[in-house]
């Protein structure tokens, strides 16, 4: 008997009901309904073109495409051959394309990845960036033309795929060259979805509405994979379009009777602000709007309910999930239909000793939302600084052991060994357990989450340091909380070397970071020479500079 894989489950849905809709793919041109059977047929066509280009079992194929249905056909077409697809971000219109492609060289050289699927239209001169590497770029335009003309040979018979084979890669944050490819097996993905769907009561009758990009774990797993594996329906829209018109998500929920949507914290505020007075939607079909990917704030839920509380949703609709690519997705989840628990913690005890103490009346307090109970099969430990179990009333690093952990980081065995110790994955997140529920407080390292996307401060500093006009090594990057936006904002402070005017330098730094990382720095300050604070070890201190920056900002505002 054939062992269960992601594709075999999709084949099962198509066979059971050939007319079943898999995805309503919204673009500026309209909405295209793609059935499960259509998906397989179109993926088969792409698989033929891929095989003709030399792609075979276990070859990685990087998919860099805009929000169009070919995204899905390319991804599942590679999977059909037993190859390993990986979505990666498409450059924004304002990004420098030459820099975008050259930044992929390091990743390709490190990992030996040989295949890229993209558009001819954005790849002018692409080969120059990959000279000396055995890289083949495939163009969607050519494949579609070949398929229309009937010149694409049929795909070879499907190879036998074992459940432990890697199904796809999910790339982490960082400059492209330093991105970590999280390897996820068919078995891990299917186990995660079986368990997670069980907790949510998610099944074939559900409709997920999403604006999330597919290179991000929330879009890829909670929307695309959850739908495909369970036989549900996905309504997806372009992230760029959604940012411009956030209420289009509500339009789609109302029109298609959406039952689930996933949003990073900032998105709750962005949608709530966009609604015009008197505008109303019927959101009564929703079973859960899940806040995930960046610290979840009670204020975001409050603002959302203030705007849409009379549209058929209540506090029990707004839920929280704690997830990461290394575990495929969810580690813990609150219970749909029930209001999310929260705790008011004493700020001083938390900040000075990482101690979890309920705030007494009159004390400074911080309200923290629960991320729910660990999924069945997931064990959670809170570690102290020495790697042992932290005392029950202390916060510490969250470590997890589950039956759906990643296979490792692609071509990074040392990093895999550092993060996966005795079957436990050390998340780098700080948190604690209370009454069986997990609470997440922040990060232990310099990871900053901006609009739900992850960036490392040291990466940003490296990119900024490479700009002309900056005193060597005199740069610091950190994030500050923006209550207004419901996310964190990226700040860079830099000391000039005197060769460039401050306004020009700020523009150059913002442009460089945007081109290389796709991140818009919200604040770039050119500060006087020798004003950045160094730690006792002689390194520029992120913590101290951040604290001083916050004090100065508070003083000015």
């Amino acid at each position, binding site marked *: 008997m054939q062992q269960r894989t992601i594709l075999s489950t999709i084949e099962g849905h198509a066979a059971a009901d050939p007319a079943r809709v898999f995805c309503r793919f919204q673009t500026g041109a309209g909405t295209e309904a793609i059935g499960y059977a259509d998906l397989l047929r179109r993926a088969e066509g792409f698989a033929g073109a891929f095989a003709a280009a030399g792609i075979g079992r276990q070859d990685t194929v990087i998919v860099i495409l805009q929000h169009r249905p070919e995204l899905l056909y390319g991804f599942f077409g590679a999977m059909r051959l037993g190859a390993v697809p990986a979505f990666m971000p498409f450059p924004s*219109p304002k990004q420098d394309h030459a820099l975008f492609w050259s930044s992929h060289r390091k990743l390709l050289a490190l990992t030996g990845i040989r295949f890229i699927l993209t558009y001819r239209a954005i790849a002018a001169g692409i080969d120059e960036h990959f000279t000396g590497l055995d890289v083949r770029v495939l163009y969607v335009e050519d494949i579609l033309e070949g398929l229309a003309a009937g010149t694409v040979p049929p795909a070879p018979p499907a190879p036998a795929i074992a459940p432990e084979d890697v199904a796809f890669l999910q790339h982490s944050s960082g400059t492209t060259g330093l991105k970590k490819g999280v390897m996820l097996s068919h078995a891990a993905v299917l186990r995660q979805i079986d368990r997670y769907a069980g907790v949510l009561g998610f099944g074939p009758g559900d409709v997920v509405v999403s604006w999330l990009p597919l290179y991000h774990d929330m879009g890829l797993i909670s929307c695309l994979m959850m739908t495909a594996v369970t036989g549900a329906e996905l309504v997806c829209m372009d992230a760029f379009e959604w940012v411009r018109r956030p209420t289009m998500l509500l339009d789609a929920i109302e029109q298609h009777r959406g039952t689930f949507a996933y949003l990073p914290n900032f998105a709750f505020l962005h949608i709530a602000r966009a609604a015009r007075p008197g505008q109303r939607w019927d959101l009564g079909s929703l079973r859960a709007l899940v806040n995930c990917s960046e610290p979840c704030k009670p204020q975001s839920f409050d603002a959302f309910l203030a705007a849409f509380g009379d549209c058929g949703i209540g506090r029990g609709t707004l839920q929280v999930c704690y997830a990461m690519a290394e575990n495929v997705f969810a580690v813990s989840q609150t219970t749909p239909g029930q209001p999310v628990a929260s705790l008011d913690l004493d700020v001083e005890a938390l900040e000075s000793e990482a101690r979890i103490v309920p705030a007494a009346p009159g004390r400074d307090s911080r309200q923290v939302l629960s991320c729910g109970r660990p999924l069945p099969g997931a064990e959670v430990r809170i570690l102290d600084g020495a790697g042992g179990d932290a005392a029950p009333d202390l916060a510490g690093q969250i470590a997890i052991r589950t039956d759906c952990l990643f296979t490792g980081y692609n071509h990074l065995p040392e990093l895999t060994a550092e993060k996966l110790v005795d079957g436990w994955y050390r998340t780098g997140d700080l948190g604690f357990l209370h009454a069986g529920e997990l609470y997440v407080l922040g990060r232990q390292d310099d990871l900053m989450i901006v609009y739900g996307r992850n960036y490392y401060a040291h990466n940003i500093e490296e990119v900024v340091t490479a700009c002309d006009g900056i005193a060597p090594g005199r740069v610091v990057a950190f994030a500050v909380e923006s209550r207004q936006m419901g996310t964190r904002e990226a700040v860079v402070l830099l000391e000039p070397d005197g060769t460039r005017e401050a306004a020009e330098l700020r523009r150059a730094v913002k442009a460089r970071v945007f081109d290389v990382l796709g991140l818009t720095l919200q*604040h770039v300050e050119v500060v006087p020479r020798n004003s950045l604070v160094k730690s006792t070890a002689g390194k520029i201190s992120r913590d101290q500079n951040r604290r001083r920056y916050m004090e100065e900002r508070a003083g000015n*505002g």
Partner: protein
Amino acid sequence: MADEESFREVAQAIGETLMVDPATITRATTADDVNGWDSVTHSMLVMEIERRLGIQLPMDKVFDLADVGELVDLVAAARSAG
């Protein structure tokens, strides 16, 4: 005149959305010159301008502007068309 009024409205909206002093905004100001101006706050700014003036700005153009001057021209055109 209409241009000057459009400029004033746009500068006020920028001030409110991005929490900066509107007096620091000129036609030559770019998003890179103003702290906090990113794609999400830009869309908030567009919504704020539309709300203030009761106009609709063309989606294809309003996210592809070089500076505040071009935004003001777009606003002025939308107002005269309306």
